[in-house]
C-alpha cells in the first residue's frame, strides 16, 4: 500500500463510500476514516450500520446522502444488534458483503456497550469500527467514558477526574477473533489492519483515535499531527489482539512529551489537570501492554 495514495480519489467521486459534499467539519478524523475504509475494502462494498452520531448527521439530509453504499441508521445503543440481523440474513443468502458498524465512542464505550458486548460474545460476522474522538461531539462536546482525565468538556467544565475506559481490554476479554487500534497518522498500519479484519471471520473490533477540531479545540490542519503525537507519547498505543489472547504492539512510544500532544488543544487547558498523573497512567498502560506481548505474543503468521 502506497502512502501517497491517500491524496488520490479512490474511485469516481459519485461512487465513493463517502462522497464529496458531506457536512463533516474541516479536519474531521471520522470523515478521513470513512475514505480510508473505502480504500481498504477496495472492490468490496460494505453495508454500514450507523448509530446516532456525526456519521449520521454529516452525510446530509433526506433525500441526499454522502454515503455511496447502503447505510442504515440505528438507534443510539443499537448498531451491533441491527448489524446482527443484517449479517445473519446476508449470510443465509450466501452474500459476502462486509457488514460494518461505524460508531463513535459514545455509541461504543457508553450507551452501546451492552449491545456491543453481546454481539461480540455471539461472535457475529461484523466489523465494528469505533471512531473515537473521546467526546460526545455531535451534541456539542460532553464527556464520555473515552474522555481522558483532565479534559474539559461541557459536562466536566473543571476537567474530567476519571481515567479513560480501556475498551480494547474489554473487547479482548470477549475473545473476539481480532481487535486492533488504528491511527490516521499510520496509514500503512491502518490498511494492513483493515486487511486483517477483512480476512478474518466473526466479530472484529477496530478503534481509531479520531481528531475532532471542534471538540478538541484544535487547529483543523493539525489533526494528523495530533494523531501522530498521541501515538508517539503513548497515549494512544497501536497494537492488535488475536482471539483476545495474543498481542502485538505495532509501534512503541518515541519519547514525545505528553505536553507536546496537549499543547494546541483547548480541551487540555484546565487548571486542575495533573500532567504527571496522566503521564504515569500512560506509562503504566504501556508497561502492561509490553508484559502482555511478552507473555502472550502473536504468532508469526498473524
Amino acid at each position: 500500500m502506497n502512502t501517497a495514495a491517500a491524496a488520490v480519489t479512490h474511485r469516481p467521486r459519485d461512487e465513493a463510500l463517502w462522497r464529496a459534499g458531506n457536512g463533516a467539519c474541516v479536519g474531521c478524523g471520522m470523515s478521513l476514516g470513512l475514505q480510508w475504509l473505502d480504500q481498504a475494502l477496495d472492490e468490496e462494498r460494505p453495508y454500514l450500520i450507523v448509530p446516532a452520531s456525526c456519521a449520521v448527521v454529516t452525510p446530509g439530509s433526506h433525500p441526499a446522502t454522502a454515503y455511496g453504499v447502503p447505510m442504515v441508521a440505528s438507534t443510539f445503543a443499537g448498531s451491533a444488534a441491527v448489524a446482527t440481523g443484517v449479517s445473519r440474513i446476508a449470510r443465509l443468502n450466501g452474500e459476502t458483503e462486509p457488514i460494518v458498524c461505524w460508531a463513535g465512542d459514545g455509541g461504543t464505550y457508553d450507551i452501546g456497550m451492552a449491545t456491543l458486548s453481546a454481539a461480540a460474545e455471539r461472535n457475529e460476522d461484523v466489523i465494528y469500527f469505533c471512531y473515537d474522538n473521546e467526546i460526545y461531539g455531535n451534541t456539542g462536546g460532553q464527556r464520555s467514558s473515552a474522555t481522558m482525565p483532565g479534559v474539559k468538556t461541557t459536562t466536566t467544565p473543571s476537567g474530567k477526574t476519571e481515567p479513560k475506559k480501556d475498551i480494547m481490554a474489554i473487547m479482548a476479554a470477549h475473545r473476539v477473533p481480532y481487535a486492533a487500534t488504528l491511527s490516521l497518522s499510520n496509514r500503512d498500519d491502518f490498511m494492513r489492519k483493515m486487511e486483517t479484519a477483512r480476512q478474518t471471520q466473526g466479530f472484529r473490533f477496530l478503534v481509531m483515535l479520531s481528531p475532532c477540531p471542534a471538540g478538541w479545540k484544535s487547529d483543523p490542519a493539525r489533526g494528523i499531527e495530533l494523531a501522530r503525537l498521541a501515538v508517539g507519547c503513548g497515549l494512544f498505543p497501536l497494537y492488535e489482539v488475536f482471539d483476545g489472547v495474543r498481542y502485538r504492539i505495532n509501534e512503541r512510544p518515541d519519547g514525545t512529551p505528553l505536553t507536546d500532544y496537549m499543547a494546541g488543544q483547548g480541551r487540555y487547558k484546565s487548571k486542575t489537570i495533573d500532567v504527571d498523573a496522566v503521564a504515569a497512567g500512560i506509562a503504566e498502560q504501556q508497561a502492561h501492554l509490553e508484559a502482555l506481548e511478552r507473555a502472550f505474543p502473536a504468532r508469526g503468521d498473524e
Partner: protein
Amino acid sequence: MTRALMSGNHTAGYALIAAGEANRGARGCCSGVYPITPQTEIIEYLCAARLTKGAIVPVESEHSALNVCIGASINGARAFTASSSNGVLYMAENLFAAANYRLPIVMAVSNRTVGPPWNLWADQGDSLALRDAAWLQFYCESHQDLADTILVAFRVAEDARILLPAIVAQDGFLLSHTQMVVDLPEQGLVDRYLPPLELAHRLDPAHPRAYGGMTWPRDTVKQREEQQASMDLVPAVLEEALDEFADVFGRRPDGALTAEFTEDADTVLVACTTMVRTAREVVKRRRAAGEKVGLVKVKLFRPFLRDQFVQAVGSARRVAVLDRNHAPGSGGIFWTEAATSLRSRPDIVVQDYIVGMGGGNVTPADIDGIVDDVQQRGGSDAPVFIREVAV
C-alpha cells in the same frame, strides 16, 4: 387438519414459525429473542424450532431483540419476535424505528402489567403505551384467534399498501398459560397464504440507499401522512386478508370489530381479549331474560376504526367500555377511542369501567354489575374503578 391442545404461548410460537418457514423460498426469516414472563414460552418455542432457512438469535435485551428483527427485515427477511410488559417498553424507541422504516415485523405480545412494583399478570398498559408507534395492534380473545390473527397480521403488514409492523396481543396467563384445542394451520396452507416476502425497499448494494439520515419538518409530515394513509387502508386490506384466509383455511377469523346482539340493543358492552368471552356469556343470559343488551368486540385497536365503531354501537343509548388498562389523568384507553368515535352522539352515555387491571379476575358478576350500573346512568362520568373481589 391438525388439532392440538396448546397453550397460548405455544400457539403463538407455532404460528410465528409457520410464517417464518413459509418464507424459506425467499430470503428466509429471523427473530431476535429475549425472555420475559409471561411470553417466555414463545421464544423458547422459536429456539427449539427447525427452520429450513432462518436464524433465531437469543440476544441480551429486548432492545436488541427488536433491532435484530429490524436488521433482518431491512435485509429482506420475514422477521418476528415476542415480548411482554417492561420488555415492550425497553424496545420502545426501536418500535418507532421499525414503523418509520416501514418494516412488516410481527410481534406477539403476552400482555402484562408494567413495573416496578412487579406484577406478572395481564394488563394491556404495556402495548397500549406504544399505541402511537405506528404499529397495527390486534387483541385476541382465544387461542384459535391468536394463531389465525398472527398469520393475518403478516399478510396485512407485508401488503405493499400497508408495510407497517404489527403487534398481536393476548392476555398474559389468561391465554398465554392456559390450554385450548386449536386447529393448527398446516404448513402447506400457510405457504399458500403467505407468499414469499419481496420487500421492495430492502438493502440493495446495486442501489445504495441511506435509511434514516437527517430529515426536515416537511419530511416528517410526509412520513406521518403516508403512515396515516396506510393505516386508513388497513380495514380494506384486512378484509381481503380475512377473505383469503377463509379460502385457504376454511374458516374466517373475526375482523377489526364484531357486533353481537346489537341490532336492537339499548345497552352495549365494549370489550376485547378474554373479557369478550365472559361478557358474551353475560349478554347471552340477559338477552334470554329479555334485556336489550349487546356486545362490541374490539380486536383491532390500531388503527381504531371510528366509523365502523359508531355503526357497531348502532342505536344504543348506553355504552359501557371495559378497560384492562389505565392512562392516569385520562382514563381507560379504549374508552378514549370510544368516546372520540361517538363525539357526534351527545345523546349517548359512554361510561368507562377500569376492570381487571393488574390481572384482576373479571367475573360474570363484575360484568353484570357494570350493565346494572350503566343502565341507571343519566350521563357519562369519571372512570369507575372496579377492584377484584377477594375470593
